[in-house]
């Protein structure tokens, strides 16, 4: 078998090699030689222009085109109406739009915020908008490469050129890992408050889930995902996060630009604040406990919200699958308190001393200690104040300070 296969392999390899070697000849650019005659020579063009910058804009080096994805195109593929020399003095230089070939991309782009801005700009309004060329380049356009940190940094540089404040800080876990377009969509880029934006609250599970599949998959089953699904989409969806009853989506907890890695303690600290913005009562009762107070003072080992309730699979305590259900509480508390038992977990992690129904012993001991505190402080403050007043009155009357003589 192997003796018959070897010649076949050699022949096959030879054919492939010849084809590859012949490719440049086959794909020889059909660039019009006349164009490069002038537009390939900077010094020549400079003589016909008023400034060096203008000249530079009119020069296209062959080497640039060779490296680009459009190497196989002729100049006239895009630049129409230049078939004479000298060019028509009053003729509008016809530049074919990219959409002539890239129809699908152009259609999507037309729906996005950059197209909207470019229309406004064309209508004479002071708007800046990224066009195809702003991101892809013109004569040096190459296929999008997201394969390396450097390549992603190059792509992001185009966006940051206008959106400077959106640049990710170096300690953001996404910095260098994704491109702007990973989240904001490349052509269908929309405002954050646009309902249809890829980063709109309702779209976040899908957008973020493209990479974070495990988190996104569990979200629909937990309380926040359910609330999201049950949300009446009619009013104010575009400003979902501004609604009081809006359930959180990815960015509500993780933020967006400048986020912290969830593995870091600082993130858990940030989450205690974030959860508290909606769960006000649970937040205030948490901060009444040792867990809450130590966390507020910078402890990184005591229980935070996530430690007990989880992150993407939060469930109400009355569901057996919940990490804080009666069935699982021993295990949940046991993560930090190894000897936790059924007795131990009767601790009230969100104690409200004013709530008699919830925790009667706490309520009564709180009332008792308050009565004791105000009783002791009240009686003895009066005791002290009147004592001071008595001595002051005696002193004013000139009576001896210690009242010794009055006894005699």
């Amino acid at each position: 078998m192997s003796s018959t296969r070897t010649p076949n392999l050699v022949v096959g390899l030879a054919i492939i090699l010849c084809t590859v070697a012949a490719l440049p000849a086959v794909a020889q650019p059909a660039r019009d030689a006349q164009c490069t005659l002038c537009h390939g020579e900077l010094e020549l063009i400079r003589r016909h222009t008023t400034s060096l910058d203008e000249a530079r804009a009119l020069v296209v080096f062959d080497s640039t085109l060779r490296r680009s994805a459009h190497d196989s195109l002729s100049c006239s593929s895009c630049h129409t109406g230049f078939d004479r020399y000298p060019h028509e003095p009053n003729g509008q230089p016809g530049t074919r739009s990219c959409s002539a070939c890239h129809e699908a991309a152009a259609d999507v782009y037309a729906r996005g915020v950059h197209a909207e801005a470019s229309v406004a700009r064309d209508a004479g309004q002071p708007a800046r908008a990224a066009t195809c060329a702003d991101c892809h380049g013109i004569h040096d356009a190459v296929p999008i490469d997201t394969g390396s940190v450097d390549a992603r940094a190059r792509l992001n540089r185009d966006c940051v050129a206008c959106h400077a404040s959106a640049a990710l800080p170096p300690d953001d876990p996404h910095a260098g890992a994704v491109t702007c377009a990973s989240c904001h969509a490349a052509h269908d880029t929309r405002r954050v408050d646009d309902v249809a934006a890829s980063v709109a609250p309702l779209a976040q599970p899908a957008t973020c889930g493209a990479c974070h599949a495990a988190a996104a998959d569990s979200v629909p089953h937990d309380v926040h995902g359910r609330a999201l699904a049950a949300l009446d989409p009619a009013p104010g969806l575009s400003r979902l996060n501004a609604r009081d009853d809006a359930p959180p989506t990815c960015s509500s907890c993780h933020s967006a630009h400048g986020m912290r890695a969830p593995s870091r303690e600082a993130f858990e600290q940030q989450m205690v604040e974030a959860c508290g913005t909606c769960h006000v009562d649970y937040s205030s009762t948490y901060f009444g406990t040792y867990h809450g107070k130590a966390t507020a003072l910078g402890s990184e080992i005591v229980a935070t919200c996530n430690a007990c309730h989880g992150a993407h699979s939060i469930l109400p305590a009355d569901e057996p699958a919940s990490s804080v259900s009666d069935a699982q509480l021993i295990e949940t508390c046991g993560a930090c308190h190894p000897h936790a038992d059924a007795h131990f977990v009767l601790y009230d992690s969100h104690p409200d001393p004013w709530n008699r129904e919830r925790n009667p012993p706490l309520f009564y001991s709180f009332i008792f200690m308050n009565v004791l505190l105000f009783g002791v402080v009240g009686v003895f403050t009066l005791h002290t104040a009147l004592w001071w007043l008595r001595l002051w009155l005696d002193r004013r009357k000139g009576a001896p300070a210690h009242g010794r003589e009055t006894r005699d």
Partner: protein
Amino acid sequence: MAYPALQPLDTAQRGAGPYVWRFTLFNRLVHGLALSTFYILVLTGLPLRYACAPFASELMRLWGGVHMAGIIHRVAAVVMVAYSLVFAVYLIVRVVRSPNPKRMLWGSDSLVPHPQDAKDFLKQWKWYFTGRDRPRFGRYGYLEKLDFFGEVWGLVIIGGSGIVLWFPELFSRWLPGWWFNVATVFHGFEALIAACFIFIVHFFNVHLRPDKFPLDAVMFHGRATMQYMEEEHPELAEELALRPAPSREAVVDAPAPPPSREAVVDAPAPPPSRTASIVSAVLGFIALGVGIMCIGMILWAVAFC
């Protein structure tokens, strides 16, 4: 000038007359331990209870973080329980060895509350309003007894709840978990009561009231003048005057018998040396200052949280 220069600051050295020993060295060492552990416990516990106070984070940082503060809090608590137990044994030995144990348990030397204390308490209020008939105290007035039993009560409540909160996994064998909620309330409130009581009752009665202001260093150098005794503890002073000990008149009439260098309660004492006076005044003012700072922080925290 016959009196040390610090005499005007230290009300225990007021007036003329010989000195008597009021507190033994052991008494004073225990008091020193009591006040230093108390302040450490307050200053490590307060920022946790009032974690929302503006000073809390900074104070915790000074202690080396909330967990280091917790360790210091527990060490101070163990020291406090230890000297309290030692002092309890000392009291028992004192009673047993006393030639008159009954007098130690129920009499003018006793710390045990008497019906007379209730009468004195009412008399004190009457004096506030009438200006007549100020109560006359013996060795321990009702305020000293309150100081002592306030600490005993505080130690039981705060220490008991504290040890439950220290070892929750252990105590949950016997106590349902909601006891930790209750223990937290008892611990925090009783600590607040203790701190307020120290300021309102102890500081005012001992140091700050106008007839003692600004400092009573008797607990630091251990002795007081007879005038002090006659004014602050008249019943005891009368008794001492009957004993074959120097009274003010004796100083005038005849040379006093040699005072005891060793601190023996009620024995004649030499006047405190200049060094002893200075050290006592400095320690006393530091302790008083820290205490006033503590109460200021409590008020600040209560106003803020």
